[in-house]
């Protein structure tokens, strides 16, 4: 269930006000109804508010805005607006082939059972490096693991345009190699222009009309 953020904030604010009331007027807990109120205000409501808040924070951590809020990621954000269809992230972002609000996460999570959790743990590692480690130059940033075709195939596998594309079938066994990750989608000569932020200085950018 997707609860609107304002409703969660209002619930947490209400819980905080009731808790403060109890902190000021603790003599309310002298009788039985007061003790029930205390249990509600100091156990049930904070647990619900914290669970909802945690869930909302995890969801926010998947947003494009969250990923691009670190300075080191800004060029990667700019690369989404390059006016060149050979830039794979740009063509996906500009044509809404990925949800624009969750663009980074959509391509950079792993589509496995614990993929979303792995992505969060890697996100914590990003934060460690950002605040406590040595931040590399944007162009020197590399993925922790080679990009797996599984992430592309999560959407593309079975698509008519993908399965019947002549370049995907030009040699026998090529499609099987793609599907089994033996041949990377990002191989040289295939879809090898990804963010390429070192080339952004020469790129032109698409500006959507307001």
């Amino acid at each position, binding site marked *: 269930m997707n609860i609107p953020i304002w409703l969660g904030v209002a619930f947490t604010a209400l819980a905080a006000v009731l808790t403060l009331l109890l*902190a000021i007027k603790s003599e309310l807990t002298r009788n039985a109804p007061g003790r029930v109120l205390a249990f509600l*205000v*100091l156990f049930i409501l904070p647990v619900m508010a914290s669970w909802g*808040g*945690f869930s909302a924070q995890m969801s*926010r951590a998947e947003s494009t805005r969250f990923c691009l809020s670190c300075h080191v990621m800004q060029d990667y954000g700019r690369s989404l607006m390059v006016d060149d269809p050979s830039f794979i992230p740009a063509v996906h972002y500009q044509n809404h082939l990925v949800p624009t609000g969750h663009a980074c996460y959509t391509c950079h999570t792993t589509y496995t059972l614990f993929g979303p959790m792995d992505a969060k743990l890697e996100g914590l590692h990003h934060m460690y490096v950002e605040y406590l480690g040595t931040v590399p130059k944007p162009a020197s940033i590399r993925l922790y693991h080679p990009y797996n075709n599984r992430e592309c195939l999560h959407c593309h596998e079975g698509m008519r345009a993908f399965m019947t594309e002549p370049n995907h079938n030009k040699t026998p066994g090529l499609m099987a190699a793609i599907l089994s990750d033996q041949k990377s989608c990002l191989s040289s000569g295939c879809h090898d222009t990804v963010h390429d932020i070192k080339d952004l200085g020469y790129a032109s950018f698409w500006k959507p009309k307001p």
Partner: protein
Amino acid sequence: MPASGSPSPSAPAAPRNHLIERRIRVAAALVAAGLVAQLVSFLWIHPLAFMAFLLIGLPLVAAGIVMFLLAILKASPPAA
């Protein structure tokens, strides 16, 4: 002999209530501080806000809840 800070069941009601209320007051203050920290963390969509929620908001609320539960456990009279 009762443990330090735990009044015996035969202790006068007023000081005992006072002790329980004081613990509930501290627990409520911790929970309130944690909830306020959680609320503040929602003002920004930023990794630091996420960390503030995770490292300040959640632990304060958890500490307050544990303190409240301990207060009501210690307040209940022992079984006959």
